[in-house]
């Protein structure tokens, strides 16, 4: 897409439209003041702690436990969301049933519902005396105030990402090749897994990454249901808040930087895998 037609030295392609300077100026100024400079302050603060202290904060058992819970929990929730999101998108695109439109609209609820509201509602439902918690209590399954509760909240907030990424691709995938595969004698399962789903895979992966990225940093919906027991059900964002409340700014900055670097690295990794797959399969 980049300006290939322009002379190699020009940074932009000539255009008759006005306003590039103004619009780019507004964008870059706002972006720098609101996002980039504050993030830079975070990295500087973290770096100013010095290698020994950074290492001590990063490898303290409590930090490691919190990071492990946030990242593994987000990974687990994103996997659940990928599986159920795919089924949900499939059902919404291909089947007709009463209330389908309503269900379709409801999928976006986690985007619209404030996380604190979701948090107290989930805590109320999955608490031992809640609607679902009471059903699980006789089975000796505790959800609220355990790591399982963290997963429930992370599944809640990540669900729409997968559905909304997969849905449009599934809609496009309906058509002739599917019939052709069936008429050529492929079984239904084979048609689904070898003809319909492969083009959906990149979108599924993108949805997975978005759900994961959102879940890693999630705070509001988790803290009410998690119970927040150190080393057990304490997520990394909460640990940052705790450090801040103790005026341990350097500690908060180091954990925040670790979180950002880890999640950026993971997102980059998945994007690279995806780019490679795309090159191999041809542009999807």
């Amino acid at each position: 897409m980049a300006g290939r037609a322009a002379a190699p030295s020009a940074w932009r392609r000539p255009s008759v439209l006005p306003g590039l300077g103004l619009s780019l100026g507004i964008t870059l100024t706002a972006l720098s003041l609101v996002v980039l400079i504050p993030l830079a302050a975070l990295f500087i603060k973290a770096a100013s702690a010095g290698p020994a202290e950074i290492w001590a904060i990063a490898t303290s058992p409590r930090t490691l436990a919190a990071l492990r819970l946030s990242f593994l929990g987000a990974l687990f929730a994103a996997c659940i969301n990928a599986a159920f999101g795919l089924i949900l998108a499939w059902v919404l695109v291909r089947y007709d049933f009463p209330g389908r439109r309503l269900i379709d609209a409801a999928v976006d609820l986690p985007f619209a519902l404030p996380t604190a509201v979701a948090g107290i509602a989930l805590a109320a439902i999955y608490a031992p005396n809640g609607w679902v918690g009471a059903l699980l209590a006789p089975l000796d399954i505790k959800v609220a105030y355990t790591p399982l509760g963290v997963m429930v909240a992370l599944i809640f907030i990540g669900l729409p990402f997968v559905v909304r990424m997969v849905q449009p691709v599934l809609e496009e995938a309906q058509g002739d090749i599917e019939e052709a595969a069936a008429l050529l004698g492929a079984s239904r399962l084979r048609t689904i897994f070898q003809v319909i789903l492969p083009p959906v895979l990149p979108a599924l992966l993108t949805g997975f990454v978005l759900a994961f990225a959102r879940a890693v940093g999630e705070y509001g919906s988790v803290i009410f249901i998690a119970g927040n027991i150190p080393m057990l059900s304490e997520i990394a964002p909460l640990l940052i808040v705790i450090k801040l409340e103790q005026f341990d700014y350097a500690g908060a900055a180091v954990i925040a930087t670790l979180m950002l670097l880890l999640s950026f690295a993971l997102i980059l990794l998945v994007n690279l895998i995806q780019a490679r797959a795309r090159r191999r399969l041809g542009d999807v």
Partner: protein
Amino acid sequence: MSDATLPRHDAAAAPAPAAKPQSARSVVGESPIIQAALITVSLAFLLLFLLLPLITVFVEAGARGWSGYREAITEPDAVSAIRLTLLVAAIAVPFNVVVGVAAAWAIAKFEFRGKNLLISLIDLPFSVSPVISGLVYVLLFGAQGYLGPFLRANGIEIIFALPGLVLATIFVTFPFVARELIPHMQAIGSTDEEAALTLGASPWRVFFSITLPNVKWSLFYGVLLCNARAMGEFGAVAVVSGKIRGLTNTMPLHVEILYNEYMSAAAFAVASLLAGLALVTLALKALLEWRYGDAIAASRRH
């Protein structure tokens, strides 16, 4: 997605379960049993994770009856929290609209180097934890922050005050408007604008009478999502607010305080207002997608 416009080959017309489409379906499509099973699984999943929480909010909010509900949302702290939430959104959303429109204009109408990097940077706040979005401002403007001494010397309050709340809210909602506008503007192209300019219209007139009307529905869509997030933001705001009752307490923070004080019914009463906002947002969103699905389809595609 407006499903009315989608070609569906299993569109078995409701009145007559004709035999013809049946044979067409048997080639591509699952057996009714599998269909029913998949639908049941999806609905159960949604019920468990999405609908039950929503219902709970309203049920718990009504636990102490109408008078308890009214008392919870009209007591002074609740009213000032509602007012503060509206004020923060009223500053943060227009700011993001201006920046979002400017960013979309630059990115969709021009070709320049570093464009993909710019898009990634605009999307950056999506992958930053809300808590970190608040933390960065504390590190910058807090009492022990880099600019703290300077601000204190000049009597400017940012953290634990309105500016901090607004900044943190702008940070987390930064990408929303631009993200909806960019793909739509790119899909429309610039031929209309070029024609108008050639015919002698002034640049601002071109913008206000051609570009803006062309993208108004995706702009509204972006504003809707931006506003929902701005009013509901919790993590980022919690870090910079200090939670001073009646002063820096927004609605989501008020919900938390009430809940932690075991005033569950009151917490859910205030939460029900936010849930109502979410339902209105969803309804408007569904309406937009149904009515102007073609116009904003481009923005759903990315």
